[in-house]
């Protein structure tokens, strides 16, 4: 596969790992602890586990899995509202696959499907729009989630619905923005992140300029990173080089797709359809100002929150849940009191155990056994 296989070359990876090893041996932090690099994005977390990259890195370098998995941070109240919408007889509820398993207060969308709800998995919001066209007597709701990466596609689908006069298509908008998220991590007490791998596809949309404050105000390096293993390793190498030289800059490893100024053609539909919310609730992180968007007045007719008169409700996670601290890199997954005991992939309590890319779920079977295998 072009532009994929070349960035999975094991020989180049070996060379990079050697360089990373060298750099790590030359960096000692004042607190004499491992170097901690946060990958913000769930796609990076997935790649790191998929290619077994963690074990290939030196012992004094650790990845901290950040809150960039939009499925993981879905609050229970949002899932409850999805269920509220889906339980109307005339509704076809459409969603990306990963969201179907996230538990709300009592059940997930998958449970509601089993109970007879018309819930359909789609690959694209345009497929949801097609369902609306084919089912004029139904109200078709698309569950829009994700960071800026998925905002243009959702926005363009709404614009298309308006252009084609489709009046039975609605958006339940739960898109979130990356900058307040990263800022919330940087502002957390006990935060010990030395550098960041920036979310590659979010950066494709917004460019790299919005990350400036991380270098200017917080003096941390950030490298916008692609998703193939060589992209991640090269980005780690670039962060380490900065750390060694005492630098804090915003760099772009993913230059084949990311440009400093972002993608105007993708930003334009976002500005056309959405506006910032005052605040938005995140599972595990609480409420963060201006971290979510909603449908603006021009497209209000497509807003599911209005159509279904949804109330904003906060449903707190169980007291025992320590997802917030894990998300911010303050705790490791196995340091959470309920990790692997009351909270497992089969019966998840918190967000990070739900999605397969959640830090805790990914860690669950990995940690127990991988050391034993590697030792053999």
């Amino acid at each position, binding site marked *: 596969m072009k532009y994929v296989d070349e960035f999975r070359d*094991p020989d180049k990876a*070996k060379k990079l790992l050697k360089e990373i090893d060298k750099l790590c041996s030359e960096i000692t932090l004042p607190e004499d602890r491992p170097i901690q690099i946060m990958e913000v994005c769930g796609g990076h977390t997935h790649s790191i586990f998929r290619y077994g990259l963690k074990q290939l890195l030196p012992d004094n370098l650790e990845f901290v899995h950040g809150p960039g998995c939009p499925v993981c941070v879905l609050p229970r109240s949002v899932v409850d509202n999805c269920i509220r919408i889906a339980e109307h007889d005339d509704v076809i509820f459409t969603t990306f696959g*990963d969201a179907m398993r996230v538990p709300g207060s009592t059940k997930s969308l998958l449970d509601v499907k089993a109970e007879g709800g018309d819930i359909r*998995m789609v*690959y694209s919001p345009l497929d949801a729009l097609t369902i609306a066209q084919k089912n004029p007597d139904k109200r078709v709701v698309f569950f829009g989630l994700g960071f800026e990466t998925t905002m243009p596609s959702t926005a363009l689908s709404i614009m298309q619905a308006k252009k084609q006069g489709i009046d039975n298509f609605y958006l339940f908008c739960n898109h979130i923005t990356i900058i307040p998220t990263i800022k919330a991590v940087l502002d957390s007490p006990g935060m010990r992140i030395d550098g960041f791998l920036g979310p590659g596809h979010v950066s494709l949309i917004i460019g790299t300029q919005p990350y400036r404050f991380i270098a200017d105000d917080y003096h941390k390096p950030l490298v916008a990173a692609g998703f193939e293993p060589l992209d991640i390793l090269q980005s780690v190498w670039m962060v380490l080089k900065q750390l060694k030289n005492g630098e804090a800059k915003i760099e772009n490893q993913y230059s084949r797709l990311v440009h400093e100024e972002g993608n105007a053609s993708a930003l334009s539909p976002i500005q056309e359809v959405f506006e910032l919310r005052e605040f938005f609730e995140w599972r595990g992180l609480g409420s963060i100002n201006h971290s979510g968007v909603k449908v603006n007045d021009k497209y209000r007719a497509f807003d599911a929150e209005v159509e279904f008169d949804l109330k904003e409700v906060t449903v707190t996670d169980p007291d025992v849940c320590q997802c917030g601290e894990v998300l911010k890199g303050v705790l490791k997954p196995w340091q959470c009191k309920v990790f692997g005991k009351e909270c497992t992939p089969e019966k998840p309590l918190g967000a990070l155990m739900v999605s397969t890319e959640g830090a805790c779920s990914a860690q669950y*079977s990995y940690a127990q056994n*991988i050391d*034993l295998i590697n030792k053999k």
Partner: protein
Amino acid sequence: MNKKYKGKKITMAHGSGGKASSDLIADIFVNTFNNEYLAIMEDQARFDMPAGRLALTTDSFVVSPLFFNGGNIGKLAITGTVNDLAVSGAKPLYLTCGLILEEGLPIETLDKIIKSMQKTAEEAGVKVVCGDTKVVERGSADQIFINTAGVGVIAEGVEIHSSSACVGDKIIVNGYIGDHGATIMQSRAELAISADIDSDCQVLNHLVQKMLSVSDNIHSLRDATRGGVATVLNEIATDSKVCISVKEDSLPIRVPTRGVCEILGLDPLYLANEGTLVCVVKAEDADTVLEAMKQTKEGENACIIGEVVDGPEGIVALNTLFGGNKIIDKLIGDQLPRIC
């Protein structure tokens, strides 16, 4: 097909036991399956069994869509049951066929499916000797559900068990993995992708007999169906209390199957197969078994994908392209297309 059925659909009468029922049975089922046991039309099939241990299995088939590249629900209904018998080392002999038909199913569709079942049965050398037909009201079933049960005989001395894998054994698959799951994914209209992939749906009993003819040291054999090769490996690792290591660069995956997986965020190790087996064989016989497999149509792309290693019990690890290891866990729930 008898032209009286052209354009006609299944009605409740076809399941009621009256003339419509018996005509349908005679015209479509007995006529197509065409063997001396079924033709007698008693309440049961009666036959002698050769000496040896009996193996018995059953499976139900509810796939949608009914027809897909490389197969259909009928073909699956035969291959699934034949293969479940085959991997015990049994010679499959006789199958049953239970049908639940939805009112309104076009009879031409039913006829096509039954003809495909017979063709597949002939390929396997088995006979469908008895059956049952029920009709349910429109909406109570998704067009057609099929159950097949099968009986076969295991020759003396053949002992193949999921619990028999030993450290040092090699793991072999007979061909490309994940094709059936990828075919079904790409035939789901709501995903709107199209790819040139066919299901791997095929009978494996001849392949297994060929393998057994060259080695007495095949320890485990499993048919990798739902849940894919990963699930079967986990089952063997758990049942045998061993650790299995698989090399990522040994996995045989077709280019378009890989493409479907990349677009949808799926892992080919967990995709369903319908003509793929996993064989665990003593190391010293691995090359012999592999060569024998490669001489068959079902095994021409066979390869060694890993081995049983000294490690934590019940664990399957993937040795990645970069030399790191990753746990291949049991599947929790269905593998849903991932976009993150």
